[in-house]
């Protein structure tokens, strides 16, 4: 299996960890960063900070945690898994030069254990910065719905404040348990890929949050259960996005475990799915999650941002030749 980072480094690409000071985080997980290049040409990343550390024993799993091979180790006296978001700016060397906690509005008291806006993708539509993620703390059963938070990002002082929030009901009956990983199609404001295979694109009213299915491509594609990861971006004449597939299972003791892999999916400009690359990992971990894709300011390479075991965050500059190879592989594979 391809280690994508290795392939990029060997082709002249670059990997950089995304780190903010311990004083803000107490050393717990920095994860699932979402990269975005804004209209000023700034490389921005929304960095998710969580109050837990993921413990994941890989390989033979000889050293599981007290609770099993995969455990979210929050403080033992606090059952919540709390997310905060930090918007960072990176320089051309992909180093963090500015960071600010997003000051979220207090619209309700969280009433479920997963608190905060999770896996938020950063976009700029109609001149506004938006974080689009899932929130599950508004109901006692953890029902998840996508939300769009409008962020006032003041660049001179580098502060970030949520100034508006819209909760998006699921299209249709709105009776699903958890809607998440709707990924924004960058050049189609307020349109999201809700499902990749088959492809369902949802259009959202930015004022009311009402959603409807805008595109549904029924197909005979084999169900690879590809879930949304990165933004959908234009690359040459295609749309591309990194998606993920996850195997969730329990061991013989009933303890949970998971393996995540990613693929590059390719669509034409009408969102007809053309192909999927072979699965790959970023850095050979079993739990990784890509939450951002952007065209590099050099207009040739692609930036991908990913989390490593929910504990570390990275940004990867993917050389043009590598993304092109992946694209070709996807087109060659087609529906294989």
């Amino acid at each position, binding site marked *: 299996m391809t280690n994508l980072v290795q392939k990029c480094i060997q082709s002249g690409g670059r990997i950089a960890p995304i780190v903010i000071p311990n004083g803000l985080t107490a050393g717990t997980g920095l994860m699932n960063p979402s990269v975005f290049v804004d209209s000023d040409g700034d490389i921005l990343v929304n960095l998710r900070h969580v109050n837990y550390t993921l413990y994941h024993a890989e390989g033979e799993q000889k*050293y599981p945690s007290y609770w099993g091979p995969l455990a979210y180790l929050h403080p033992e006296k*606090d059952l919540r898994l709390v997310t905060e978001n930090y918007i960072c700016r990176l320089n051309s060397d992909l180093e963090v030069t500015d960071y600010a906690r997003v000051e979220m509005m207090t619209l309700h008291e969280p009433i479920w254990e997963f608190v905060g806006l999770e896996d938020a993708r950063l976009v700029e539509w109609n001149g506004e910065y938006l974080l689009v993620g899932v929130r599950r703390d508004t109901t006692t059963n953890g029902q998840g719905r996508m939300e769009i938070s409008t962020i006032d990002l003041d660049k001179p002082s580098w502060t970030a404040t949520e100034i508006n929030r819209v909760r998006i009901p699921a299209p249709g009956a709105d009776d699903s348990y958890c809607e998440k990983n709707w990924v924004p199609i960058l050049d189609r404001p307020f349109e999201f890929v809700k499902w990749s295979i088959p492809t369902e694109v949802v259009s959202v009213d930015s004022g009311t949050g009402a959603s409807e299915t805008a595109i549904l491509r029924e197909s005979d594609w084999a169900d690879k259960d590809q879930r949304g990861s990165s933004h959908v971006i234009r690359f040459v004449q295609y749309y591309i996005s990194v998606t993920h597939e996850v195997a969730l299972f329990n061991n013989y003791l009933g303890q949970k475990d998971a393996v995540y892999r990613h693929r590059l999916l390719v669509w034409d400009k009408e969102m007809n799915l053309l192909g999927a690359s072979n699965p790959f990992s970023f850095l050979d971990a079993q739990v990784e999650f890509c939450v951002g894709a952007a065209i590099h300011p050099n207009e040739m390479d692609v930036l991908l941002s990913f989390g490593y075991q929910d504990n570390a965050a990275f940004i990867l500059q993917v050389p043009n030749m590598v993304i092109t190879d992946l694209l070709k592989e996807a087109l060659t594979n087609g529906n294989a």
Partner: protein
Amino acid sequence: MATLNKLIEQFSIDSTDISLCLKVAQEYERLEQYASAVSFYLKAAEFSKHDVDTYAALMKVSACFQKQDNRDHTVENALLQAIALIPNRPEAYLSLSQYYERKKEWQKCYTVASIGYSTYENNPDLPIDFGFSYPALEFQMAIAAWWIGRQEESKRLLISLSKRVTDPVYKEAIKNNLILMDVDVTPTVHEMADRVNAIRELLALEVADVEYERFGSTGDGGYVMANDITDKDFLVSFGVGDNVDFEYALSLRGVKTHLYDYTVEQLPRDVPDAFFYQEKIGPEDTTISDAIARAPSKNNLLLKMDIEGAEFETIASTPLADLQLFRQITLEVHWMNQLEDYPFYIAARNAFQKLRATHFPVLVHANNDRPLMVLGNAPVPVVFEVLYLNRDLYKFEEKKDPFQGLLSKNLEALPEMGLSFP
């Protein structure tokens, strides 16, 4: 961050390289990114083929969660896994004992420390230094013993430790605990007299068949040496400060010099044929052996050492064969007021013993800018200089004490008074 960037790049090329994995983890830990560090320590633990790497990685997993606080089960669990992997290593027992101490589970603290203390000493090194020492386990036993009702054992252990431990944090803790127990470990006047006499004997002056000369300026700027110095000699000078008159004076004799001092950026003035190293002298830094290796030759070496209290440990870490290479040694000895501290006394005694094995002291001169103490009924200068001459390269007179065995104490209960030092 540049270091971390580079390590991640290397890791991406070979994520099975466990030593690299550990380095990534350690760098994240250094940046206090404990969650990230855990990912890589755990990977190292799971994939290493060497138990010592896994053991160290599990200890670090525990340490990272300890720093995050409020993850007690995980802190303990990782240490138990390390112990199960290599039960005869002591390090994880110490960490686990300290964990139980924090939780005030005293019997577990004591039991685990005792088991750790009984482990095998000659284990291979771990890839990560945890700063472990067996006295640290004894300290755990001493503290826990108190809380489980073993008061006498606790006192015994602490008193024994007070005579051996040099780590300043532990010394302070031992002292404070003994004070709380109303145990006075201050040496008696007899014990102090014994210590002072031991030092005085080691500094008993010999008379060499040689003339002497003062080189350098008055005050701190000069030293008395045997005047057989020529341009074939090479001076190793530890400790420069703001005065190089001594080295300059020797350079006028054609003596070349290497000078060492980490506290100054450059020499206060030029010294011909001299090279300056801004380096610290000590067993963990630049050693006497290092300086000898840099000298142009191992013949005709002279040593001047004025390093503000690091002299005993520096001498202790020097092989006798290297000390033997110096024809003359002028040494400034510091802080003899600490002779009350048993580990200091032992370090001083051992250093003087070692020097006497290869050299004889011919001159002791007290620095009069420091007080004169009275310890054990004898005067002891806080700082003094000693000139040593190589036993094999000079001729020394045979000495006889005409009064040996003829003098008697007036009061048996007190030590004899020393009227001079040495």
